[in-house]
């Protein structure tokens, strides 16, 4: 066997990321696929902003700001024929520009701490949701923090998932760990509930080792300084489960990609412990498809709905194809259409910022148009900020694939 068994998380530190710039042949394929460069000339495209400008950055030239306009979708890296880590090069450049977080706006600082906001707001969920639903408050928030007034802020839900889990009886079975992340804990509890029920249905017992945030918003906006301690604490919290041989399942493709590959790339966390955690992380749909498709097929009821699936950008970084599609195709009578858009535009917290909101709208225009033409009953997407964005822009309910599967099991088509 030739297999080396080396995972991407272990041997891809920032030196490897930056070193890959020399593989660039200037073919321009990345620029041809960049959704941001297609809608604004402010962003010169991944080829110039990534490998080409990196040479000047190494020479200590004055930093220019174009990397801040990159949404981090990663399509450039995925289409590069020469394995240049374009998107990671740009993200590392962002961290340099903002001095690891020293020169970052207050609004971005807030957006970078979704766990903190969710926890504070979750103490008084009704009040918070009412306040944030008011256009006057949103105007004030916009002028104070630069968070665009019509950016799709999710509702806070207090600790709904935790409370549900505490009162939820699970039968004994093989144990798996679920990395819920700040989105499930604070904003989108139904996805977590659906996953736990689905895994119970397949005979697993689910434990949730931590409610910490993966810190992706910090890493992707360059706030690497404060991120380090948070990330280390998360790795420490997850590692005991990994030592017992458990997989760590995630319902967020962005959190799981961060756990799998980005701590090494952005924080040089290439130690064994981080690598073991990285290797244990698996996307929920990938986990379900691998060895459970047969059992699922038997318990899925017909669902004669028009379903539009939008694969989030991070799927490309995961390199796992589209397991959600393969799962949904098991549902009888489903009318499934796949999104033709490269990106919904929101780019995590990218489209929340006042000065980038218009770019995000333009990037997501083709998806909105497809929704208008197909008129789906429901939209499915694996990533939370994409779901909030798509729902806000199309007024069509947008759920995680495990929610759709659980509805098919419950016969709620």
């Amino acid at each position: 066997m030739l297999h080396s068994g080396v995972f991407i998380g272990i041997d891809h530190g920032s030196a490897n990321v930056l070193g890959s710039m020399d593989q660039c042949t200037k073919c321009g394929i990345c620029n041809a696929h960049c959704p941001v460069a297609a809608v604004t000339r402010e962003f010169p495209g991944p080829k110039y902003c990534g490998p080409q400008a990196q040479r000047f950055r190494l020479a200590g030239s004055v930093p220019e700001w174009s990397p801040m306009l990159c949404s981090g979708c990663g399509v450039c890296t995925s289409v590069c024929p020469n394995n240049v880590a374009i998107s990671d090069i740009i993200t590392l450049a962002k961290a340099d520009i903002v001095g690891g977080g020293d020169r970052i706006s207050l609004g971005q600082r807030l957006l970078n701490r979704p766990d903190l906001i969710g926890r504070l707001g979750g103490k008084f969920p009704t009040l918070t949701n009412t306040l944030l639903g008011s256009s006057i408050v949103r105007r004030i928030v916009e002028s104070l923090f630069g968070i665009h007034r019509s950016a799709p802020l999710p509702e806070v839900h207090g600790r709904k998932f935790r409370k549900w889990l505490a009162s939820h009886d699970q039968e004994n079975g093989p144990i798996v760990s679920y990395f819920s992340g700040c989105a499930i804990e604070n904003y989108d509890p139904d996805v977590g509930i659906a996953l736990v029920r689905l895994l119970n249905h397949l005979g697993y017992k689910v434990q949730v080792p931590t409610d910490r945030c993966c810190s992706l918003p910090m890493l992707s906006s360059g706030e690497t300084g404060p991120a380090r301690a948070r990330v280390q604490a998360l790795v420490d919290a997850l590692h005991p489960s990994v030592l017992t041989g458990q997989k760590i399942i995630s319902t967020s493709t962005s959190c799981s990609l961060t756990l799998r590959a980005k701590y090494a790339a952005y924080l040089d966390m290439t130690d064994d412990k981080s690598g073991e955690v990285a290797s244990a992380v698996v996307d929920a749909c990938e986990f379900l498809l691998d060895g459970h498709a047969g059992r699922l097929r038997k318990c899925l009821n017909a669902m004669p709905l028009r379903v539009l699936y939008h694969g989030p950008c991070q799927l490309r970084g995961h390199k796992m194809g589209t397991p959600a599609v393969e799962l949904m195709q098991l549902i009888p009578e489903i009318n499934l259409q796949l999104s033709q858009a490269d990106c919904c535009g929101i780019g995590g917290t990218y489209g929340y910022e006042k000065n980038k909101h218009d770019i995000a709208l333009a990037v997501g225009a083709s998806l909105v148009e497809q929704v208008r033409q197909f008129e789906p009953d429901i939209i499915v997407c694996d990533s939370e900020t994409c779901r909030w964005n798509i729902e806000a822009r199309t007024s069509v309910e947008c759920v995680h694939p495990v929610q759709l599967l659980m509805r098919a099991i419950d016969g709620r088509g």
Partner: protein
Amino acid sequence: MKTDAIIIGTELDGLIAAIRLREHGYSVRMIGNGGGSLHYAPEGIHVLGFSPRNDEEIICEPLAIISQLDQSHPYRKVGIDQIRNALDWFVNISGEIHQKITISGHNELAVSATGLSIPVYGTSEHQATVGKIGGKTAALVRFRGYRDFPVELVAIELGKTGTKTEIVDVVAPGDAVENAALAKAFDELEETDSYFTALKDSIPSYADVMLFPAVMGLSNFHRTLASAERVLGMPCLEVPTLPPSVPGMRLERALTNYLRNGTASLHSCSGISGSSFETDRIVVWDDMGRQYEASLVIVSNGGVLMGGLDVDSYGVVHETSFGFKTYQSEPLKPTTVGRSLNALHITGVETDDALRPQRNGSGFCRNAFVTGRTLPHWNPAMECSTEGVCVATGWAAAENAHEYLESLNVA
């Protein structure tokens, strides 16, 4: 996660093989590393433009001279009957899912990105060819700020073939300056008719054909060009641009979307980090450590150009996914390759007539097939035969794989 076939690479040949295997009812997983070489492909099906022995000899009827090619050329391995079947099949499927392709049985002369005439076997409706514009007066569109189309050069070269040109300066929709961005701007243009109406005044009255750079949309190009013809009242044709090529991207899009909706698994951007090769079972690991199993594998990873073949510091060529035995005419050192690009093109994985490679001194594999640019003994650049060889070998590999999978079922 087992499938009948794993296809390494998302080149044209791999996409063809995948679609054909799906038609036979097999499950297919494609694992491709990056954007394929369709990003370099201009419009049209180039089957054989120039003689492999003498690149100044233009071929008129490519299928008539297949039997005169060297025995080792991929076309000879596929054979004339299979080539015909493959091309007919491709014309059909292109008509269904992408655009109509016309094959007249002999080569046309297509206009290239630099205005030169290139022999092409299958042409599309809006492709600029010498046959369509020869002797006419063409309004040649130059979009303001757009760089990837050498308008003056095209005008000079077209002049030599008897086409008069008048360069017309036009403002493109949006403010894009690159191929794909411009194409997307056209896709999103809501009122195409009024856009072309506004353009009408700047076009000289004596022009009888419009030539646009081939950026008139990625997915909506049919609509945009039809609108242009309706409003401007004359044929509106596209001339290829410098790469990345929008027509190539359109074809790649059409084929991958067709596959995706047809339940094939596409894992774009996964590299192969390892493999276990047994006589009846192939396991590959991607570069994230995932394991995939299949009964057979088709290698269509684009040769040296797209990283499917690697050259070491001794100038020796290696096949990167499985270590198949390769052919090369000479060591590929940086010092010598510059003098003979031919050596770089004609290298590849040596196969038998069924496109099956060899491993480590053992015989030819029963459960592996090699296609397209990964095959040796042909020079796509010199022969002008890229799409033809890719379609023919991709189709043949799928047929041979079908035969093999059937033999497994019988056993």
